[in-house]
């Protein structure tokens, strides 16, 4: 086996909301075929961190970022970089399932491609089918592709959103607490999908559910007050963390 490649090299990221300094220079690598889980108490900056990776943070009024994030060797914060191209390569699934309103299932999944300018119906159909299959939703919706996406159940909606992201085929998929609004069965399905996605993608997932991080990730990073306290193999971090603060957090002795 060849050496795993660090697809994302995140260095010294600082982020602000107005005057509030929420990220204080964390650095992390994310490798190919890896699920990296980000854990930490609310307000520790893990969601902001993940949103700096696809440059979504800067869309918030008054938000600022500094630092470098190399994606496949190229700094996405270089002045000449087009943010639209960054987001085509680094997809994102959100906390709440958010299918586009007024769009059919087909239109939802093909939205990224269509609105980037791809028109050929045969190509769109092909990609919609393969994406829905990858998101394990095809069998449930193949006869109702023209029905509105918002008519699906919460769990199905989230898989629809995953399919929508997969349709653009980004090598990196960011997930911001993707199962926190779902029931346990839907959660299990999404987790299973994440495990499968690992074969082709790099997944960075923010989760409040430590068991989830323990179940599905290869590596885990513990965030506290805008910094990475510990970043290690998941199996080690959850059995024998090296930092006392990590230990206190994961055993629930925080406070």
């Amino acid at each position, binding site marked *: 086996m060849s050496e795993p490649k660090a697809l994302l090299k995140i260095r010294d990221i600082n982020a602000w909301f107005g005057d509030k300094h929420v990220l204080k220079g964390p650095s992390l690598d994310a490798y190919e075929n890896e699920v990296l889980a980000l854990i930490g108490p609310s307000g520790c900056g893990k969601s902001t961190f993940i949103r700096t990776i696809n440059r*979504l943070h800067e869309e918030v009024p008054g938000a600022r970022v500094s630092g470098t994030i190399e994606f496949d060797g190229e700094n996405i914060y270089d002045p000449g970089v087009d943010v*639209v191209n960054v987001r085509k390569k680094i997809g994102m699934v959100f906390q709440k399932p958010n299918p586009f309103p007024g769009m059919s299932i087909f239109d939802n999944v093909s939205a990224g491609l269509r*609105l980037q300018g791809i028109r050929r119906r045969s190509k769109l159909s092909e990609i919609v089918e393969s994406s829905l299959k990858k998101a394990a939703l095809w069998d449930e919706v193949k006869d109702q592709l023209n029905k509105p996406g918002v008519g699906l159940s919460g769990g199905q909606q989230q898989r629809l959103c995953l399919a929508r992201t997969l349709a653009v085929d980004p090598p990196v998929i960011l997930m911001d607490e993707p199962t926190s609004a779902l029931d346990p069965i839907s959660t299990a399905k999404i987790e299973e999908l994440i495990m499968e996605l690992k074969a082709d993608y790099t997944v960075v997932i923010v989760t409040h559910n430590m068991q989830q991080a323990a179940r599905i990730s290869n590596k885990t990073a513990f965030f506290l007050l805008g910094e990475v306290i510990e970043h290690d193999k998941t199996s080690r971090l959850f059995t024998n963390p090296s930092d006392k603060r990590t230990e206190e957090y994961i055993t629930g002795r925080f406070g």
Partner: protein
Amino acid sequence: MNLKAETGRDIRRKIYNKLALGMISVLGALAIMPMILIFVYILIEGIPALSLDFFLENPKPLGESGGGMANAIVGTVILVALSCLIGLPVGLGAGIFMAEYSYTKTSKLLRFTSDILTSVPSIIVGLFAYAVVVKPLKAYSAWAGGFALAVIMIPILARTTEEILKLIPHHIREAGLALGIPRWRVTMRIVFAGSFAGILTGIILSVARIAGETAPLLFTAFGNNFGFRGLGQPTASLPVQIYNYALSPYKEWHDQAWAASFILLVMVFIVNLLTRVVFKDQRGES
């Protein structure tokens, strides 16, 4: 424990409850009364004056019997269409801007001026249109009337559009951006298209609002008795026609005014009904 209402306090409370409920019901009925009375009155007075001629004929000179308001019906449709032509792009554009760039200074200014403009009396809007359109062109015209109505329509439409677009949660926009879709396409194809039913409702309601305006048309579109002669010419409209006829001393004209009121009411009613249907469609979707 005794859960039945037996003590004096329990019984008193029940009586108060019934009294309060009764009072609210009476007040509620009083509030609906004017609407019902207007409707019934117009129905009784208006229907007898209706005839096929009313829809097909222009007004006849005084003294001749018969005649109708075809000129005013056509005129109202033309004025509304003109005001939509001017008002829709501006109103929708302003609404989209306020919703999507809501934190900018421009948006705050837009919002403030919209609110002021909404509360400006419509007669003043008419005067304004007279000053900027009628006087330079030296003629009453459909253009001037359409312009005046558009000025009334724009702030209403802008604010409703803004409110409706804001109903789309922020994370839907972010989802679009995260797919690598350019910002303006997210705005137009996801946010705007996604709330189309709501926007349509906003448009219809603002149309219903301006269709019944009289004051801004008095010295802009002015009115005529001979039917539509071109956008640069004085143009009749139902509200103005009603106004003129109702103030006249002639019984036939009074009857025609009633009939016109009835038609105007039905038009507004249909438009309102239309919004219900549109909204129901949208609900059926989600």
